[in-house]
């Protein structure tokens, strides 16, 4: 069962297609990660799901609902641009948001979330007294009050310190355990890999990736060699660029990543490496989401493999 069904949606801004012919099926109870460069259409897509923007073409619906679009109140939304009424006291503000979503008595739930996210001491302080991280946690609480079945989080981790980010990550996973469908956008690829059941990448308004991490990596194959050498960094003093069968070399400090050219034999590359340096580790791996992101949207991008609107997730 899908929580949200996006069908051939296009949204134009001044003659430019911010989102172009997008179809997406977001399964119920999953964490769906939206990735893509800035300005690629993630926020526009999220705003259309929430109902703040209307598609110029296509439809967005919740299967089983009689109305077009996602009914207001079924979605909790944390926008990318954070903003709260600064003069209101935190508890009053959260209760206002909860009641606005339809809650009758949300004070208990507010207390529970404030304690869970370490904001209980700040409950009676005005919002303007909170730090940026605390404000973000407060806004997260406002987004998830009244247990909406769908939660949209636009870059929930941006600007958070590691401790706060971990707290929020645990809270999001708790939401999924309760059966909530979570759609989140992030620029942090390891987070997307670790948290998301499905990953959708949008680039210049078009869908370029959609599926589970394994499915996406499968499309690219195992074309990455990760190695380390006895002499440490920078390939033990060796420059691996120009190595036969290697398309790109990425030095990560203690580890080097070599991207194989299409059709090249890893065994031949290994022999060549052994002849040049003393390897301490060698592994053939699938590309990380970060690699895939850069291959599609990086400066030397080769574009994306053809992705149809028939998504693996559907």
């Amino acid at each position: 069962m899908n929580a949200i069904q996006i069908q051939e949606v296009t949204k134009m801004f001044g003659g430019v297609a911010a989102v172009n012919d997008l179809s997406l099926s977001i399964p119920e109870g999953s964490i769906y990660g939206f990735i893509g460069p800035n300005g690629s259409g993630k926020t526009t897509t999220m705003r259309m799901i929430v109902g703040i923007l209307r598609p110029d073409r296509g439809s967005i619906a919740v299967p089983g609902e009689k109305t077009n679009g996602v009914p207001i109140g079924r979605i909790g939304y944390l926008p990318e641009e954070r903003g709260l009424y600064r003069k209101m006291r935190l508890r009053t503000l959260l209760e206002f948001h909860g009641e606005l979503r339809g809650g009758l008595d949300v004070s208990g739930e507010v207390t529970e979330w404030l304690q869970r996210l370490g904001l209980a001491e700040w409950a009676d302080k005005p919002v303007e007294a909170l730090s940026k991280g605390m404000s973000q946690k407060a806004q997260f609480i406002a987004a998830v009050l009244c247990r909406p079945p769908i939660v949209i989080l636009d870059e929930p981790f941006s600007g958070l310190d590691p401790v706060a980010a971990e707290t929020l990550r645990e809270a999001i996973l708790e939401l999924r355990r309760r059966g909530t469908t979570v759609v989140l956008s992030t620029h942090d690829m390891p987070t997307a890999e670790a948290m998301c059941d499905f990953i959708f990448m949008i680039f210049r308004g078009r869908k370029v990736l959609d599926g589970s991490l394994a499915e996406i990596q499968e499309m690219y194959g195992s074309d990455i060699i990760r190695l380390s050498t006895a002499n440490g960094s920078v390939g033990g003093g060796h420059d691996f660029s120009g190595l036969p069968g290697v398309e790109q070399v990425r030095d990560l400090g203690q580890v080097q990543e070599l991207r194989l050219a299409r059709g090249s034999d890893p065994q031949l590359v290994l022999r060549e490496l052994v002849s040049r340096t003393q390897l301490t580790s060698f592994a053939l791996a699938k590309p990380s989401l970060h690699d895939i992101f850069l291959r599609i949207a990086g400066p030397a991008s080769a574009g994306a493999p053809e992705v149809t609107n028939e998504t693996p997730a559907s």
Partner: protein
Amino acid sequence: MRRLPHKILLIAKRDYLAAIQTKAFLIGLVIAPILFGGGVMTSVIAKRRPDIRPRRIAVLDHTGVAAGPVIASIQRLNQMELHDPKTGHQVMPEYSFETIASDPGDPNAQRLELSQRVRNGELFGFLEIGPGALHPTPAMRADPAAGLTWYSSEGGVGEVRQWLAAPVNDALRRIRLAELGVDKSRFNEVLANIGLQGMDLVSRDARTGQFRTGKRDYIGGTAVPVAMALLLTMIVIMTSAPMLPAIAQDKMQRVHEMLLASATPSELIRGKVLAAIWQALTTAAVYLVGAPLALKALDMSDLMPVHLLPWLIVYLIAEVTILSAMAAALGAACGSPQDAQSLNFVLIAPVIVPLIMLSQVIQQPGGSLATGLSLFPLFTPIVMLIRQASPGGVPAWQPWVGLAGVVLVTTAITWLAARVFRIGILMQGKAPRVSELVRWAVRG
């Protein structure tokens, strides 16, 4: 899912409490009446506490015969009006005079010298009786100095000048009558002045059949409509004008995007309008409780237009609805706080324009200009209220037709404002062009 109005009420409650709990609101409650009604109050207080310091006036007489009778005439009137006949309190200054003989050589030098004495505070002013004052001719209009001229530093409309005109002319007429050989004992009969009493139009009581009329209260007939118009304008501006920068500020702080996931733009804007109405009614309640007390203190209780208070409330709600919906739309369209300041003038135009036309409407409340303005929905609340408060009132159908127009326009503006609000509130960085605003309003 809760019923739709619940969200509107929640938004209204939040905005209302946020608005009335500010110091600005409480200070505005006190300051606004002082700013709007300060002039009127000052005038009333000035009437009650007149300046009774003695005043000296010089009379520069070019006729050689008029100064004495003129001074005597002024002093007679001065003594008659010097004290309030009821209380016995002195209510005007006592005037003293000095006669200045005309210097035929250099009259301007003489005037300069007297002017200097006025500037020095020795004289309150000087009256110049020109050579033609006793026997005026049409040709004298080209040379005011040939007739009567008054030099002083008094401001305003020149109350003393107006007050002097009657006794001075009375004295001159008596001299002319004497020259004509009229019996002196008949001067008062000839010069008797009969006031022209204004009356209300006659009406007949439908139940008793009795005719009704009464003395026209010209002061009340002007003061009541002006006061009603000022009260309505004041509350509307106090309520609606702060909304535009407040919404623009909320937009800059990006507080609306999250709300839009829980409420529609229409619900948000209707909540904000409802909050503005509550705020206006709160303000009105304060003033409407205070007004009778103030009128009683000023001994003007009979001026309280109780029968118009329901209309005042209806028009107040209508005008606040229109302006606060416009404020929401314009605030959402602002790209910066400076935009909000500039657009505030556009916002309050519907209440400022009627005030600019106030004089014409009050002088001719039944005229075509006043009638037309009162049936133009944006101006109906203030202009119709002025006309209703004016003596003679308006035909019974006109307030209802005006109100119907207001309801239609209010509905349309609220609907269009919600469409502009939905798009504008998410735009950051630049203010939209007028053509874009129109496109948002039309296409949504």
